[in-house]
């Protein structure tokens, strides 16, 4: 099952539609890392709302995607994890350490907007690092 990747302004939105196999995850990773350069995107949102299972491979691939995207000069946020999935993940010790997460697509967009607003303000203010 191919994951559609939508371009939305400066962001890419990968909207998972159904359960993904390991190969699907690899293809998603490949596609995102390529397109983030092609469209000169500043942020990537991976929406995993339909997933009701998140195994260690999926978690690791999502983390890899986030780190790879960062190396390509953009930010990643994972959105739409279900409460039950989050619960199961921490029980299994899969916590997506170092990866930004948000409640849903809207929150993900807000997160990225905030992030870039801050990044723009900072050099203008010349006040050094922000509070957080």
């Amino acid at each position, binding site marked *: 099952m191919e994951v559609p990747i939508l371009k939305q302004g400066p962001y890419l939105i990968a909207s998972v539609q159904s359960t993904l196999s390991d190969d699907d995850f690899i293809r998603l990773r490949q596609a995102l890392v390529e397109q983030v350069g092609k469209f000169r995107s500043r942020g990537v949102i991976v929406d995993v709302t339909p997933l009701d299972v998140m195994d260690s491979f999926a978690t690791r691939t999502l983390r890899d995607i986030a780190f790879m995207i960062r190396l390509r000069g953009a930010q990643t946020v994972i959105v739409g994890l*279900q*409460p039950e999935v*989050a*619960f199961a993940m921490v029980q299994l010790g899969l916590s997506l350490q170092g990866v930004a997460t948000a*409640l*849903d697509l809207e929150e993900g967009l807000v997160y990225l907007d905030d992030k870039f607003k801050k990044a723009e303000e900072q050099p203008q203010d010349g006040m050094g690092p922000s509070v957080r």
Partner: protein
Amino acid sequence: MRSPALDGTGHDIESQSPPARPRDAYTAALLNELLAHLREQGPQLREEWARRIIEANLLTAMTREEIYAEVVSVYDQYVEALESGAFRALQAYAQNLSERIIPRGVETHEVVGIVLLLRDVLARALFTKYHGDIKKLTEILDAYEPAANRIASTVSVGFVQERERTIREQQEAIRELSTPVLQVRERLLILPIIGLIDPQRARQLMEQLLRAIRNNRARVVVIDITGVPAMDSTVANHLVQTVEASRLLGATVIVTGLSPDIAQTLVNIGVDLAKMDTVGDLQGGIEEASRLLGYRIVPITAEAQQAR
């Protein structure tokens, strides 16, 4: 000539059910004689028993009149239980006793104490009656003692079971008073935790919180543990897991109200708290959360002055 079925002290259930017990005819006759005696002597023995209960400072939660009233009915039931010897009857007797007595704040040792006192009082009555005939006395005691012991142990066990049942019910009730997840501001939830956290409760708390985060679209959660008296590594790990799971839903968790004891325990047992934001008290937690959400709290007067 002790009947094999009569020397148990109450733990051997098989020997206690009436059909399985080949009651020796002679022993039965003795027991009947004994019961007749106890019925006849009832008023004096009850008086004696009540006097000794008061003397021994048992049942202090009850008044003298209440004790006398109880003594009359308990004595009759005791004699009945002695007569039938059936396990069911004993259990019913024990349960009845527990139900009457527990609500008045009577302690376990008191219940055991009064039952043993009654046993003593009755035994003494037997000594007084049969002291001239040692052989008869021995036989009577052979019949009486196992039955009396069985009553004492059944009552004790029944009382403890009744009490444990009460405790279980109360624990259930406490658990049912589920910890509320409250929204105090748009996108800000607070979760005050009162009382001990066991793994089951921790799990329930986490599930409740995660659902509330999604339903209220919360961005910040303040977990206040001022009311948690103690914490061990298991509970601390549950807390860390709750923080991580909330983060996966995009919510920041602030933990407030760690007592000095808990702070020392956590550092001593080496729980990694780097993943948790902690603030001293609930007030500070809500202030910090408001700041994270971009609010600023300004006194009305200052605002009014600015407007002027």
